[in-house]
């Protein structure tokens, strides 16, 4: 055995991070379970470490206490967009929310994101979300022959749409939008963000069509600038600003 491979437990490796107790109050919905279509709260008391995230706590429940607790996750560091959920009343990624940053004296509530049909526990049906994403033509459209080398784009032109290229399609924004909660037909901020990413790309030639699509009754005009989306976005995208830019582009075009 070699001496090097001593495992660096998180509790001791970085600074001195204490262990603490925390109650996780999870919204459960098990359609096949004894309570059927009723959803209810489940409390779990857990002992956690300083650098643990809500995702770690959920894993602890699933792995040690109740295997039926169901949620999506993959990357565990905020880049795949699997685990958007409502934590203490706000949309966040479970893997990017450190327990110690929450108020651990009170139970931490964990619920599925709002406005999309719940399938089981924290898992929602994402199809409506992706459907409106697909509708805004989220791809580069160009005409003519492909150039033999790359298309030229200056760093300044590239910077215009940089912010909206960061989207990971986690739906934290759309499911935090009060308009989307009551009107599921609304395209939602995520679709607009992804339209913005192409509308303002100097290489793209379908801006007009995308603006046309979003000029729908359920398009950008539905946004009431409540900023919930901007606050919820785990990628720090200035969504409301992007939406405003799309609105302005439409107005400029119309007048």
């Amino acid at each position, binding site marked *: 055995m070699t001496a090097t491979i001593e495992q660096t437990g998180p509790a001791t490796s970085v600074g001195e991070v204490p262990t603490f107790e925390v109650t996780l109050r999870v919204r459960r919905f098990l359609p096949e379970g004894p309570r059927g279509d009723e959803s209810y709260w489940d409390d779990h008391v857990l002992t956690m470490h300083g650098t643990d995230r809500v995702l770690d706590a959920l894993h602890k429940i699933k792995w040690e206490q109740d295997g039926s607790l169901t949620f999506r996750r993959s990357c565990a560091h905020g880049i795949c967009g699997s685990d958007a959920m409502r934590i203490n009343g706000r949309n966040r990624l479970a893997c990017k929310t450190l327990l110690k940053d929450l108020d651990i004296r009170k139970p931490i509530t964990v619920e599925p994101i709002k406005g999309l049909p719940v399938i089981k526990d924290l898992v929602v049906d994402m199809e409506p979300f992706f459907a409106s994403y697909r*509708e805004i033509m989220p791809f580069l459209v160009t005409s003519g022959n492909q150039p033999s080398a790359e298309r030229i784009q200056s760093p300044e032109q590239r910077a215009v749409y940089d912010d909206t290229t960061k989207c990971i399609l986690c739906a934290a924004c759309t499911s935090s939008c009060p308009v989307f909660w*009551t009107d599921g037909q609304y395209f939602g901020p995520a679709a607009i963000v992804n339209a913005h990413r192409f509308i303002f790309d100097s290489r793209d030639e379908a801006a007009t069509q995308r603006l046309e*699509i979003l000029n729908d009754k*359920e398009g950008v*005009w539905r946004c009431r600038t409540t900023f919930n989306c901007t606050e919820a976005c785990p990628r720090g995208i200035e969504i409301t600003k992007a939406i405003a830019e799309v609105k302005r582009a*439409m107005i400029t075009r*119309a007048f």
Partner: protein
Amino acid sequence: MSTPVITAPRSPYARRKTTRGNFELYGWVFMRISGVVLVALIFTHLFVNLLAGEGINAIDFAFVAGKWASLPWRIVDLIMLWLAMMHGTNGVRTIINDYAEKDRTRGILKVLLYSAFVIVVVTGTLVIFTFDPCPAGADPALLADFCKQL
């Protein structure tokens, strides 16, 4: 195999029915422009009616008559009426769209809303245009001072 479900190649992705058009765009711009104008109009209105002089206690028929005797005031109030009603109606329309889930509910609420709009705007406009500050046969004590000069 038990259930041979060999599906045919999918038809290309069909976009759902869309409701595009510039109506919402104009509505949106209108809300903002009317908003700015309304700030000026309503603040003046409130100031004149509630703060200047005796405030609310000064309001009576004579007060209104005094104002509407001058054409500019009539025009200002007319514009305010129209803008506020259009702004408010459009605002409430948005709210109905947000909360009414069933098409039927939505339809009924909108009929009510637009009727209210028409009734109020028509009445208001008629009143402002046909207003007689010194109606014949009215108790002179209730009328504005200038009626006495008639």
